[in-house]
């Protein structure tokens, strides 16, 4: 079995996860990132994606939005604006958000507004994906 390390996942609203993990996978702004025990100290910016924690041989999955990750010798901390377990995701709300974002994207011309709508859309899509593909 892989060596576990201490992991904390925080959002401004709550402590999402606190415990140990054998591996952690998140979506950085440059692509998927996987952390194992003994990783060198690092800080990374995170995009919207899927958070995967392997703990005791089990795989826990969750939705995560933008944030950042800090790896230190003694602890790893993930700070996210939002993080939700599949059972906490409101599918209808995500679908509504998706429709709203798609609608906005059709109308907007301003680059910044388009970027924001794209992020909103990716959040909605990722929530739907995590919710519908979860088995736990």
């Amino acid at each position, binding site marked *: 079995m892989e060596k576990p390390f201490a992991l904390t996942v*925080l*959002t*401004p*609203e*709550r*402590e999402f996860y606190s415990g140990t993990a054998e591996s952690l996978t998140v979506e*950085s*702004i*440059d692509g998927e*990132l996987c952390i194992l025990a003994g990783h*060198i*100290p*690092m*800080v*990374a*910016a*995170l995009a919207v994606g899927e958070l995967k924690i392997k703990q005791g041989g089990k795989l826990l999955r969750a939705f995560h939005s*933008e*944030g*950042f990750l*800090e*790896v*230190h*010798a003694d602890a790893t*901390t993930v*700070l996210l*604006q*939002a993080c939700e377990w599949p059972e906490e995701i409101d599918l209808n709300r995500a679908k509504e958000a998706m429709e709203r974002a798609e609608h906005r994207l059709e109308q907007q011309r301003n680059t*910044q*507004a388009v970027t*924001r709508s794209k992020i909103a859309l990716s959040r909605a899509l990722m929530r739907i994906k995590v919710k519908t593909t979860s088995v736990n």
Partner: protein
Amino acid sequence: MSTISDIRYHIKSIHQTRQITSAMHLISAARMQKAIRRIEQNRAYFYRALDTMKYIRGHTGPTNHPYLTRREPGNKMAYIVIAGDRGLAGSYNHDLLALAQQAMQDQNVTHIFTVGDIATAHFERAGQTVNARFENMLADLSINTARAIVALIMQLYDAQEIDELHVIYMKFVNAALQKPKDFKLLPIELADFGEERTEVQELGEMLCDPSPERVFDALVPQFMIGFIYGALVHAYASENCARMNAMDSATRSADKLLKKLTFQYHSVRQLNITNELSEITGAANLFGEKGDFDA
């Protein structure tokens, strides 16, 4: 002198008011506790973002990041004023708006954003334009509100429509002390933040993925959302603390008044009995004198 039914009516109405104020006291106390937990939770998040930003700044040397660079003075000022959605909170709203008024004096204010009905009403009454308002969201605060506010101000800042942004809110120091604050959020001066912090985490050498600049760019909105969310929960905790104290003293005044009125009620009642008795005995004596009534 008031009649007995007047006093009874008065007692009843004070009693009802007292029930309302004491219920509001309990509700405010519960809401304040909830907000205090949120302050603590957010603090961990915010300081982590701050530390990392300071670390990157310290290691990559001076960069001309647009969010850190001061623009020319006499510039376009924007204010976010966070007050309550309702009154009945002692001097909370008044103190905060007084500070806002004072801070905005002699400034070239181009944008005003308000959180809470009371703040909006205040500026509209004074004939000032409110550019964006956020109402009735403090009680059920979600990070989405902070995100919406930050998206709006970053858009204006990028378009050079505002040069400096201040946040005016009531800082919750502890249950006995809340201070109105005028805080400059943009351009960001990292040294201004975290003044009350006792322990600062020292960061060793770290790898920045994908690059220090890009991590920094990604952190700026995070940091601002953390700050705005923090200001909102501080304001909500302070508002409920002020309301709790106001309602507590209202309940105590009601108790005092009830005691006084009950005393009055009994003395009037007593007086009525005495009057009635003396009337009866007077009448009886009258019959007695005539001799044909055997008392």
